[in-house]
């Protein structure tokens, strides 16, 4: 029994913990700090850690219609577009995912497991390889520069996972509850809506949060499909700063903070649900 003396052990743990925290937080925090610095301060050496003269100039610039830095993007419009796309596709995913999830969990039909397995596997094929054919498909449908097109696309990408999360949680709910409601005269749909869904609320929250975060953050498909400035989303707006070969990182910092904010709110307030989905989702890819 030659365990290390406790104080030394705890000091060591503390140091490792602090190192990991800094590693995780610093890159984001550093860009956040840049958003409050002035142009001159960003270019000066040696680097100052805290903003010397904290200013909100970068934020006001992004939101003022007269300030047209390079890309001529209107940030209030971008934010509105992103919320529209993320919220609408979350609603669609939740509605159709619940319907399908219920069928997969509760009803018996030929091909059930095969179809669910196929849906889950389709989720793994969503990388750059589908950019070109998706662009061609959306042009053919006349949806290539349309937020509605993007909503449909994101919903299709998000549905398999949402369906799976909802189906696995519905399987945990005892069938007897539903059966007794049906004996009392409720139809299948009534018993689903009144009895089963309230019990599945945590899974519904998990599925919505996941989809919202994914839709809000998506960049690749938005960047190939959206052409007019009036239709662009926040991730496109943030990425457009790459084309400005300058040191104007205060604007990048402000824009990144705006893009990250809704995600951070979801993350901190829904931690419990989020982690649930994360670990469940990881098991199935």
């Amino acid at each position, binding site marked *: 029994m030659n365990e290390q003396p406790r104080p030394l052990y705890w000091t060591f743990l503390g140091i490792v913990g602090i190192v990991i925290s800094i590693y995780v937080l610093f890159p984001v925090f550093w860009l956040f700090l840049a958003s409050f610095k002035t142009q001159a301060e960003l270019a000066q050496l040696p680097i100052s850690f805290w903003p010397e003269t904290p200013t909100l100039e970068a934020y006001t610039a992004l939101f003022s219609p007269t300030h047209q830095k390079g890309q001529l993007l209107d940030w209030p419009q971008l934010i509105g577009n992103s919320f529209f796309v993320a919220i609408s596709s979350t609603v669609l995913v939740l509605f159709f995912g619940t319907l399908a999830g219920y069928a997969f969990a509760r009803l018996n*039909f030929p091909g059930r497991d095969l*179809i669910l397995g196929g849906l889950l596997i389709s989720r793994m094929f969503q990388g750059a*390889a589908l950019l*070109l054919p998706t662009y061609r498909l959306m042009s053919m449908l006349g949806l290539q520069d349309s937020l509605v097109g993007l909503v449909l696309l994101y919903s299709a990408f998000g549905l398999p996972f949402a369906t799976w999360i909802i189906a696995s949680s519905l399987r945990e709910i005892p069938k007897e509850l539903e059966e007794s409601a049906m004996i009392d005269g409720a139809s299948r749909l009534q018993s689903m809506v009144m009895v089963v869904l309230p019990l599945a609320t945590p899974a519904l929250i998990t599925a919505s949060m996941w989809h919202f975060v994914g839709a809000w953050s998506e960049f690749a498909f938005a960047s190939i499909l959206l052409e007019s400035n009036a239709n662009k989303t926040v991730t496109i707006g943030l990425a457009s700063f790459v084309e400005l070969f300058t040191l104007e990182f205060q604007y990048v910092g402000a824009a990144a903070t705006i893009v990250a904010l809704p995600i951070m709110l979801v993350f901190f307030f829904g931690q419990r649900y989020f982690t649930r989905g994360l670990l469940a989702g990881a098991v199935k890819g």
Partner: protein
Amino acid sequence: MLRSDRLLAYAMILPVVIAVVAFVVGPTYNVATLSLTQVVMGQERGFGTLGNFRALAADPVFGLVLQNTAIWILGGTFLCVTVGLGVGTFLAIDSRMTGWLRALILLPWVLPDVVTAMAWKWMLHGQVGILGQTLQSSGLTEGTVSFLGDPDLVMWMLVIVLIWRKMPLVALILCAAIRSVPDDQLEAARMDGANAVERFRFVTLPNIAFSLTAVTVISMIWITAEFALPWIMTGGGPANASQIMATYIYQQSFEFFNWGVASAMSVINLFMLATIVALYLYVNRRSWASEESK
């Protein structure tokens, strides 16, 4: 089972199936046929040719893309899993701080790719980036380092950022696996005089072997599909030094309009994904079987 229930079931899953067929299966089929079609400036001229694959193989950048993709996927996966195992082992320790860290560590995972890419671009900036400045002022390097401008360095810089982004979930999954290792086995090993390293090697590791394999294959799928991070950080540059399959497909499709070559590369990419997915199904055959028997 009632016939009406069966019809109801099909009606309920129909929207999801249509969506996936239209937006995933359809495009996959479409890109496969396109890769076998001669395409000139977006016009299709005749099906049934391997010309696109020949053109791709003759592209001088192709070899470099394969090499970079190998660093990206294999290097990225290996480092993700090894670093993730280390961090996961640490997080598995019982204390208030590790409990708190288990929540915090997911932050890089949930942030949008674009934000991550910008945050690291800023840190790695050639002149006023904090990383280069710190290295210089601490005397470790002569001048500042052009992290993303040096062809020998850039690919590994991307891998480092990739680890920052993807490792947390690997660590968390492995942490959960380590915490579920039976205490009595660890206690028995301790009684037999095994030290911490031996307990890890002979008790913990065999117990988490399944999770470790599964998480390795899943990381490969994530990393193969990752596009936004490398694209925004370097756009494949400088001079294709960080061009990987994903960025190459994007560039050929939407900047050079070389749809033939782009579709051939997409098909190769899909085959790679299919191979990894097959590996994943093989590794996970136990858990899928148990799912289906429910």
